[in-house]
């Protein structure tokens, strides 16, 4: 029987299927990358690629952080402030006696901790995530401002060089994060993210620990956002208490562009990552085309709608 295929093949077959709805997006993003490489051949050098991927990296992380929640039927309006807080904590601790390692630990604790608390509030008090995290965004922004009222702090230069120098280390880390995500998805808890997002009651009855899944996804999401903050601190060499704020909307845009549904259980992380890549490469392409700011706004609106509508039309047209 066909389904008695070899061992891991089930896993890869599942993976292949998840690409189906995303082909349109892949093509759009691919086209943008080609255009960009055509206008800026330096993209194909190590240095050029490094810089490009560094600018995309934090957006990729926060989009993953958002997608993770959306897959699970949640959402966060506190992603941006958490990036800021991550940057602030990194920049404040790394200049102290704790050093880089201590700073890393602090950022991880902050991300996981705030995420878990948010998740617990959402899961146990049964409050809508969107407004819990809206309130959370004010609280987190406030904490970042209290810790560091104005931009400052310090990240050792070697760390900046390592993460945001002329080597594609950030891209490598992104790949590791994606692998980590894939590994996590292959755990029962990870599969639970989809099950809880799609059908919480059914998941509960199947023995999936629904509350724990919710809390873990918020915690992991918080971790990703805080790590994005650490990277931003390294990239900029310092902390800034408001630098992350615009990431909130962008993370949602990236995830939705990538086909991640609002209601949970629908979409795939690879789509979200692609969505964030589109948002990022778009900025560069518009620069090289030489769009004036006004046109940038207009074009951005059109591109975003087009990237969703065109694959949809293609799909319908193929079906007809």
């Amino acid at each position, binding site marked *: 029987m066909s389904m008695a295929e070899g061992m891991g093949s089930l896993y890869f077959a599942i993976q292949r299927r998840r690409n189906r709805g995303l082909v349109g997006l892949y093509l759009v993003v691919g086209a943008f990358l080609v255009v960009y490489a055509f206008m800026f051949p330096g993209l194909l050098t190590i240095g050029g690629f490094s810089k490009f991927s560094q600018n995309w990296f934090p957006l990729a992380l926060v989009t993953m952080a958002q997608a993770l929640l959306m897959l699970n039927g949640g959402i966060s309006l506190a992603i941006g402030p958490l990036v800021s807080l991550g940057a602030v904590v990194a920049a404040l601790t790394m200049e102290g006696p704790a050093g880089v390692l201590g700073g890393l630990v602090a950022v991880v604790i902050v991300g996981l901790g705030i995420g878990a608390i948010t998740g617990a509030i959402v899961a146990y008090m049964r409050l809508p995530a969107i407004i819990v995290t809206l309130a959370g965004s004010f609280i987190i922004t406030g904490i970042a401002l209290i810790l560091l009222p104005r931009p*400052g702090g310090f990240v050792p230069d070697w760390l900046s060089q390592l993460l945001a120098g002329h080597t594609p280390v950030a891209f490598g880390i992104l790949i590791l994060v994606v692998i980590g995500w894939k590994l996590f998805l292959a755990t029962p808890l990870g599969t639970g993210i989809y099950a809880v997002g799609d059908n919480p009651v059914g998941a509960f009855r199947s023995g999936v620990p629904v509350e724990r899944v919710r809390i873990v996804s918020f915690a992991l999401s918080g971790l990703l956002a805080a790590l994005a903050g650490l990277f931003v601190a390294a990239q900029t060499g310092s902390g800034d208490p*408001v630098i992350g704020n615009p990431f909130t909307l962008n993370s949602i845009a990236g995830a939705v562009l990538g086909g991640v549904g609002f209601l949970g259980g629908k979409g795939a992380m690879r789509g979200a990552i692609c969505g964030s890549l589109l948002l990022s490469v778009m900025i560069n392409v518009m620069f090289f085309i030489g769009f*004036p700011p006004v046109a940038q706004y207009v074009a951005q609106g059109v591109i975003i709608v087009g990237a969703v509508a065109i694959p949809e039309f293609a799909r319908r047209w193929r079906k007809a």
Partner: protein
Amino acid sequence: LSNCIKGDRKAPYSVGWANIYSVPTWMKQTEGTITAEVDELKKAGLVKDLMITDAQGNAQTQIQQIQSMIDANLDAIIVEAGSSTALDRVISDACAKGIAVVNFDSLVDTNNLTAKINTDSNEWGSSAAKWLIEKLGGKGKIIVMNGPAGISVSDDRRKGAQPVLDANPDIKIITETNTEYNVAPAQEAMTSLLFANPEIDGILSLGGALSAGSVLAFDRQGREQVPITGENARQFLELWKEKGLKSWATMQPNWLGALSVYAAVQALEGKDVPAFVKVPLPVIDDSNIDGYLAKAGDFPADGYIYSPYDKALFDKLLAQ
């Protein structure tokens, strides 16, 4: 040679303006002075094109856009910074490539650039505080109105005022606000404060729109106006005249933008441009306000009435 200049770039130059956010009126006016200056320089055969980017308030995007300007090998980059620290590294990279980098208004911390051009924000704050305290006879209850939290401009102005306030213990700060540099939110906040505080002796406002919002709030609530500091915002100056306010104002000239382009080209041409160009803060008071108001019609309703400028002024400022 000036900072960053290597002497291997030849006119006509291509210039980039990396703006953090193009939407506020102050920025629009500033863009006007920049494009006007570029037109002049084009006529002189010194500049061939101007590329403007708008980071839509996102410092992270601004880094990416400056990186693109480096990738496109522009000869000069003018920066209105979205964060005092975040751009340090990318600006240093540009400088290392021999690009003339000039930063104005909202400054960065790094000194790896050709020139910073600004008024002195600390002095802004201290002069305003001095005037107000003198007006109040060294005694009274005041409210402090600040721009957004975590932004260096608003923070620096506030900091400059602090020593003066410390030296006058009889001046009591009832409360402080942070709002965008916009009339409506400032007016809204002040209205609430008016209800809560029957006695207010003066307003230390550190932004023109904030002052206008405050005056409007007093007016709408039928409260008697109190001494207030401010800036050359047209709306504020008009209210000052109309309501007969006791006021003092200064100016952050929009032509800092034009001056920056001019300075960058001068530096590329091999002239010596000082690393910090300090533009003096003028004082606007009852003695000269009419001069400003006479030109009001030439400026947008919510714009800033800036003083005239010319090449001679620029040369004088650059010669310091």
